[in-house]
């Protein structure tokens, strides 16, 4: 039953572009996949390892800039730029991790905000990398998989974004069951206790941020190829870091499907209100966002997925009680 349901969902997702040929529904789905993947990547560090980073835009931006600059300077295909960006993001994450992982809780969160602001300022003032004006990805026609540019249809972008999400989910799924996943969760629950039973806390945190940064950077490269224009305001802002984490928090932190669920709720909400109210300059969608996040945090800190779990448990208890009484 459960397996059949999963198969139906997978088939529906795969067949979606065949049914919906118009760009807008496809765009919404692509954004869901992208934000789902980014939030899943964030979840590896924050959800499982308990390190609440508010600077993940750094890795997103590095992914976007690395691949784009490699196209400009070396005419390298984004398929190679993508792993290059991920590798660079891992490197940067290790450097950043060295000071910030000494901090805990709120201090850590604030330090990551600070790092994010520094990196954004550096890129705004770095003329070789486009400075504040940003970079255009050189347009290449006709559409080709090699150049990762498609001007005629969004279908291929759709499947690539889906692939990114599947990759992020696969890594998380593997992590959830591996020894390392248990170690991460031990650090989240009590870092001192974990250290006392022989966990190398600093090393494990560096592993967590490396995985998280690499996955985030892949999303950055995809974004650059999708919109074909990047600038520090769009790929490095604090608001992006916060948005990534909000998606995960809304859906449910520290669970496999939570971030995807969060993206599936927030992205249509944001795209929908943008279309309905767009151009008025009234940020009503963000007002709703803010209120929603507050409500979730106050009433259901484990996110929407916690709500679903509670509902299922209640129902199971109800049916269990009914069976007991009939017997």
């Amino acid at each position: 039953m459960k397996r059949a349901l999963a198969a139906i969902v997978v088939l529906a997702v795969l067949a979606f572009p065949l049914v919906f040929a118009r760009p807008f529904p496809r765009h919404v789905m692509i954004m869901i996949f992208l934000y789902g993947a980014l939030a899943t990547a964030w979840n590896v560090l924050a959800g499982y390892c308990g390190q609440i980073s508010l600077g993940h835009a750094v890795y997103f931006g590095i992914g976007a800039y690395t691949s784009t600059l490699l196209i400009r300077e070396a005419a390298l295909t984004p398929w190679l730029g993508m792993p290059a960006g991920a590798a660079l993001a891992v490197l940067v994450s290790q450097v950043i991790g060295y000071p910030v992982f000494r901090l805990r809780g709120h201090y850590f969160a604030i330090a990551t905000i600070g790092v994010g602001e520094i990196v954004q300022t550096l890129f705004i003032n770095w003329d070789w990398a486009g400075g504040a004006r940003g970079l255009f990805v050189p347009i290449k026609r006709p559409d080709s998989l090699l150049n990762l540019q498609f001007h005629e249809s969004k279908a291929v972008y759709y499947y690539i974004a889906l692939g990114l999400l599947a990759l992020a989910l696969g890594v998380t799924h593997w992590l959830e069951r591996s020894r390392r996943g248990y170690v991460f969760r031990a650090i989240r629950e009590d870092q001192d206790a974990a250290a006392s039973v022989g966990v190398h806390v600093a090393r494990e945190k560096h592993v967590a941020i490396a995985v998280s940064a690499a996955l985030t950077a892949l999303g950055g490269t995809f974004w650059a190829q999708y919109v074909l224009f990047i600038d520090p305001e769009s790929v490095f802002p604090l608001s992006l870091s916060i948005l990534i984490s909000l998606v995960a928090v809304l859906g449910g932190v520290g669970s496999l499907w939570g971030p995807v669920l969060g993206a599936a709720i927030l992205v249509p909400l944001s795209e929908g209100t943008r279309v309905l109210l767009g151009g008025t300059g009234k940020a009503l969608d963000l007002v709703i966002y803010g209120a929603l996040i507050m409500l979730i945090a106050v009433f259901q800190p484990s996110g929407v997925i916690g709500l679903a779990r509670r509902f299922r448990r209640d129902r199971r208890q109800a049916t269990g009680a009914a069976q007991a009484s009939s017997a």
Partner: protein
Amino acid sequence: MGFVYALVAAGLSLIFGLMELVNFAHGEFLMIAMYVAFFGWSLGGIDPVLGAPLGAVALAALGWATYHGVIRHILSGPMLAQIFATFGLAVFLRNMAHFVWGVDFRTVQDPWLSGRVSLGGVFVGLPQISASVAAFGAFLALYLFLSRTETGLALTATAQDRQAASLMGIDTERMFALGWAIGGACVGVAGALVAMFFYIYPDVGGTFALLAYVTVALGGFGNVPGTLAAGVVVGLVEALAGLLIPPAFKYSVVFLLYLAVVLWRPQGLFGRF
């Protein structure tokens, strides 16, 4: 500017010391205080200097309402819920401001205090000077309140040990609400002072809030005099960095300073941990 940063940060520090919770909507509180001062001036003809008490009262009410509406429910929750409840509040307030007041930059025209004065050959804007004096005064008042009055001592006691305080007959629930009200009042005064010489727009809180977090973390969370010292340090570093290197980088230097300090002393310069 250092004293103003310190005053903005003082409210944050007070709230953190009281309940180990960072108010990520603090910058938005400041933004609202600036709007209060602005509308006091444009609608009521009240100069921002006189509007400071107005801002203090309005923001104290907002702080009190925030505590009872949101914070009370998440005190015992996980840290993640605490962070995101106040983040949600920040997003909500900021975009409400977008929605209600629009994105236009507003300024207070011709405040009573304008022009500049010469201090030993250095020209400084009169609004800036009077803002820092007033901020220092407000800070002093806060410090005296905390250390000299019975209520202030009760507040400090609650910050040090919640359970012991409640055993001594202190209504900690009331103290928390009071802490939020005072934190709001600090930022209310600061907002009115800043409104004299700064543009007022919905996103204005961002920069100030970031600096306030750095200030608080630098001074040690919950340490009010430490916050004052750290505020002055941040203000000086910002001004000096603006002189010595391209001004675009001046905030980066402040953040770098913060990272350097926490590497050496994770609890901040004057933190007690």
